[in-house]
């Protein structure tokens, strides 16, 4: 009986498709920021160095998750459908021109939230589950 149960469980496990967990990435800013919404295009332009201000003209400083963070991979995949390696190649091309610089990397979610609370110019992305009252969601990446 136990063998039959184990076999059934094994078959069920094999039938299940192993899909990676898909985080709901959100763009957040300081809660006192005047910004309430950002278009996808504006988010891309900020993160790719084309835009250096919010739509209201205030300066914006994008923050990136740690290089190893799975959320970083998820963010770029959902935002521009590119791998982090492709994004790195993009920045490598711009290394010597000085026109744009890559977003500042932070160690983890906690650091990201602390920095966002400290400065109205910062913009960052986190998993929606980690969003607190101290930050304001202005864009759902997916």
């Amino acid at each position: 009986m136990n063998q039959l149960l184990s076999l059934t469980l094994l078959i069920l496990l094999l039938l299940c498709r192993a899909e990676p967990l898909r985080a709901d990435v959100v763009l957040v800013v300081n809660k006192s920021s005047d910004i309430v919404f950002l278009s996808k295009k504006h988010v891309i332009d900020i993160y790719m160095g084309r835009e250096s201000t919010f739509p209201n003209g205030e300066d914006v400083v994008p923050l990136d998750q740690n290089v190893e963070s799975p959320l970083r991979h998820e963010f770029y995949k959902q935002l521009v459908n590119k791998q982090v390696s492709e994004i790195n190649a993009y920045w490598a091309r711009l290394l010597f021109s000085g026109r744009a610089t890559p977003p500042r990397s932070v160690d983890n979610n906690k650091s990201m939230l602390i920095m966002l609370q400290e400065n109205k110019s910062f913009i960052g992305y986190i998993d929606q589950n980690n969003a607190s009252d101290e930050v304001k969601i202005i864009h759902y990446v997916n």
Partner: protein
Amino acid sequence: MSIKPHNKIAYRVVAVLLFSALLVALTTAVFFYNYTYKQEMTTIQSSLDRLVNAVSKTAAIAAYLDDKVLAQEVVNGIAADDFVKSVSLHSQNTLIASNQTHDAFLLSSEIMKYPLTSPFFADEEVGQLIIHGNIELIRSQARDIAFEHVTLISIYSFIFIIILLFYYFIILLFYYF
């Protein structure tokens, strides 16, 4: 001294052979000249397309960011090709890099335009790369190669006619004299 009837026929055959051979050689030469010329023009155009294709991603990034330094690198890279007279890179409607004055492009009719799409939005055009081909050099090279081919074909035809005549006279000598 009168020409014998069999000699008359022989001369006529030689004349017909010569005329036919010359006609074929001439027609082939004209055909090959045009064919080679067109082929060469296409080859040069393709090599320019490949050159642009190789730098199009960097050019698109330069146009996307209005990055003058990067744009100038792209322009200089393309301009190094002998078949390129001048290059300019535009973002939207602004000239961001060029290896010549803007007026030169406006006056020219021999320009090739390559649209640049955003590195992140496939449907957004962020600028264009304008190349002024060195048409004189392209045509001259195509002409030279075509002429080379025709010269070779003419030499082969001439040798073939000589050999043909030689064998013909050998046969004549053998049968009539």
